[in-house]
């Protein structure tokens, strides 16, 4: 059954059942991945999927239902459940279906040539990447999760107010984890590439980076607990902000799940050289999009400008609650989820300081390059965190010793104020529609725990 015929049928039945307005959301796509190990294809994956989400206003409240089976027999079941769900909703703010904006930016997030690349070629690259990684140093025990993947995604929204939008994107990725061994101790280093054109893909560079990283961790020790200046590289800085994006979402402040809300706008919440942006259209990121999950045009905006909180992230409902306009940050988890809020392309404005500039002048400090326990070690409400970490001891601006078995702990709100310097090595990671990119940062006032 096609989307168009399914839509016509469910809209007709929705109206007959008493829904006053309604919307159908569809997302789908295809994905390919090949993972090799020991010169053989360990897993080869080829997938096509699609799902539909219905929402509609029933007795003045919004009801949701979803299905991955697009067939006539599920329509009534979907509508009956959507009506039953609407009936129990008690949230007083009415969820609005959007008629659309006058115009949307042109976004080119789809490269047809990417989908043309032959599976055999991708298998060859994966095998070569593995073999190359293993050839780089005798201490390389294995190149694990050595993977080449590409996927494309499409999304459509249509509603009874005339909204009718479609977007399409594709992306390719490659990654590998080098595992090296010395004196019976195994250390791992990971590297990745993401792009929209395999011409930019250099498996040697990925393998090199992963192996170099893994080797640099050999001989790591823990250190005594201390409080010293800390540099987070661009990957771990992104991990950090990724964990705490929820605090910038207006809906969380409104419900008391974030300490930031509209009353805090105009307040200084970060160091003066901190500017945090969320741009729907961003040429450096693969995640640009012209509209969000409600069909609202995305924007380019500062969340924090020179340390001052200038905007929160809004969808239609949270914007209505605060009496402002949506910032185009509505999102849906999959095709069936309720409307929530998400970042688009979220990044810290880079400075002109190089990574080495950040290290320079540190008499004794720690560079953090790996963090774990991100989902469990953070309290997104209070901002408290304590993460397991790996990295290097810095002395007199130089990396002198790899570190393991340490934790880094503090509070994200305090961290924002204690960012001493921001680097220039901004690197985006695409995250399934949208992206996040951070440069390295230097921070004071965090606690390192060790042996």
């Amino acid at each position, binding site marked *: 059954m096609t989307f168009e015929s399914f839509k016509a049928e469910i809209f007709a039945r929705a109206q007959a059942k008493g829904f006053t307005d309604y919307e159908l959301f569809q997302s789908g796509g295809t994905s390919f991945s090949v993972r090799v*190990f020991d010169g*053989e*294809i*360990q*897993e*080869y*994956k*080829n*997938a*096509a*999927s*699609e*799902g539909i989400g219905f929402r509609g206003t029933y007795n003045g409240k919004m009801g*949701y239902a*979803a*299905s*991955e*089976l*697009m067939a006539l027999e*599920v329509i009534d079941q*979907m509508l009956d459940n*959507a009506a039953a*769900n*609407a*009936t*129990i*909703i*008690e949230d007083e703010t009415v969820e609005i279906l959007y008629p659309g904006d006058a115009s949307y930016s042109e976004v080119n997030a789809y490269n047809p040539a990417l989908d043309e690349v032959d*599976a*055999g070629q991708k298998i060859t690259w994966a095998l070569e990447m593995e073999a190359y990684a293993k050839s780089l140093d005798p201490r390389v*025990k*294995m190149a*694990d999760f050595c993977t080449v993947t590409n996927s494309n995604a499409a999304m459509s929204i249509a509603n009874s107010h005339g909204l009718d939008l479609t977007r399409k994107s594709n992306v390719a990725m490659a990654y590998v984890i080098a*595992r090296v061994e010395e004196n019976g*101790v195994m*250390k*791992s280093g990971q590297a990745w590439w993401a792009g929209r054109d395999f011409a930019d893909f250099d498996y040697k560079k990925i393998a090199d980076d992963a192996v170099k990283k893994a080797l640099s961790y050999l001989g790591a020790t823990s250190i005594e607990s201390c409080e010293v200046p800390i540099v987070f590289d661009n990957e771990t800085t992104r991990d950090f902000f990724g964990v705490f994006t929820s605090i910038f979402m207006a809906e969380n402040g409104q*419900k*008391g799940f974030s*300490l930031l809300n509209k009353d805090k706008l105009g307040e200084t919440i970060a160091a003066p050289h901190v500017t945090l942006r969320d741009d729907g259209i961003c040429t450096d990121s693969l995640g640009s999009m012209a509209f969000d999950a409600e069909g609202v045009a995305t924007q380019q905006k500062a969340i924090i400008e020179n340390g001052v909180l200038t905007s929160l992230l809004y969808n239609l409902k949270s914007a209505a609650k605060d009496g402002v306009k949506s910032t185009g940050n509505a999102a849906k988890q999959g095709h*069936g989820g*309720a409307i929530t809020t998400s970042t688009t392309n979220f990044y810290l404005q880079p400075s002109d300081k190089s990574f080495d500039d950040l290290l320079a002048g540190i008499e004794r400090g720690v560079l953090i390059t790996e963090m774990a*326990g991100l*989902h*469990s*070690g953070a309290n997104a*409400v*209070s901002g*408290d965190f*304590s993460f*397991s970490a790996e990295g290097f001891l810095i002395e007199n601006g130089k990396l002198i010793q790899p570190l*393991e078995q*340490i*934790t*880094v*702990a*503090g509070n994200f709100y305090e961290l924002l104020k204690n960012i001493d310097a921001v680097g220039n090595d901004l690197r985006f990671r695409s995250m399934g529609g949208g992206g996040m990119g951070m440069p390295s940062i230097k921070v004071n006032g965090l*606690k390192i*725990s060790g*042996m």
Partner: protein
Amino acid sequence: MLDKQLVYDVLTAALATGGDLAEIFMENTVKDNITLTNGLVEKANWGVDYGLGLRIITGTNAVYAYTNNTSRPSLMRLATDAAQAVKASIKGEINIKGVITLDRSERLKYADTIVIPPEKVAKTDIVERLRAASAASMAYDPLVTQTSNGYASVTQDVFIANSNGLWAEDRRVRTRVLVQAVAGDGNEKQTGYEAPGAKVGYELMDAINIEALGTKAARVAVTMLKADYAPSGKMPVIVDNAFGGVIFHEACAHSLEATGVAKGASVFTGKLGEKIAADCVTAIDDGTLTGEWGSLNIDDEGGKIRRTTLIENGVLKSYLVDYLNGLKMGMPSTGSGRRESYRFAPTSRMTNTYILNGNSTTEEIIANTEHGLYAAQMGGGSVQPASGEFNFAVLEGYMIRDGKIAEPVRGATLIGKGHEVLMDIDMVGNNFAAAQGMCGSISGAVPTNVGQPMVRVKEMIVGGRK
């Protein structure tokens, strides 16, 4: 779910260019979710997940493909494309099976005894009960500023068939509630939560006291709000029962999964029969327990579910093995092949994984600890199976001073290496209890139980802020 001829044709097409085993995993899953914020219904969702995954095993490698379109043309195309990938992946001689059989005499059909199926439940009743939990949290202390309460039911119908003649159907019904309380005093906020679940229907609601859970979540949030930051450094750590079992789940059992062991990417590779833990540690994985959150009738590749002794008095007895990794290791499956959905190829995973009761009482353990950290309730964590390095968060913690539980502390993370901590367990209590979690790995998020009695670790790194 599919007719026999179509299954036969798809499996035959899948093996047309070679390969040793072709397998279909098809599911139709109905999910129901309700979320209350501050006692009011904010979200209600209902949805159907539907699709089919096809796996072809050649040697010790796998080709995997999936789709939501289960029409004959779509599935035949899926199988033909996958077969081309098999052809590309086979080195050397290709062995084409040709004839497959679907005539194994037994057709396995499983379903649990569900007292109240989720689809028979009035949504208003769910709301009423969740609201009672919220009210109990709010009534506990004026410092409780927000609550979040959720209900989730999942009814997963699966059909698994393979070219060795397996033909199995299973219905899995799971129900879970989330009770969360946030305590705040201006700039600080702390949370407490309880999330019981079981492989049962709505009768779960009668088996739990949801108001007591609301009170408990509020108590933890308020206690932690008033707590000072945890200290940092090495010290003895006492981890209490129930979700405290996450220590074993993360620190050890993940590294016993064949996924890592088979390729040598686990600290426990090649250690069968060796001592990997202190004498007082005996641990099992048991998917056969009736109605438990992590239990199964069959695993997600049709394997028989069993109770596996992982560690007996400190000696490693078994890994957790799925079919494919079992081929690599020369070991039979332990019924551990699991996946979140048709979107994932199965791999070895846990079910209900427990440290069993030991000989000490909880009073003895605490009284014998002069100074240390008592982790009354744990949060989540993660592990690197290659190095055994793990981390997990302490949700409710207290200092132990002079053999007594002293002041509460917050924000502690425990880190260590699994194989070292297992050796450092020096006391095991007798108050076993289990708790529920969603465990994430390369085959997605699957429901698992963790569990243990109170356990003392001689020394661990506590990452606090003081």
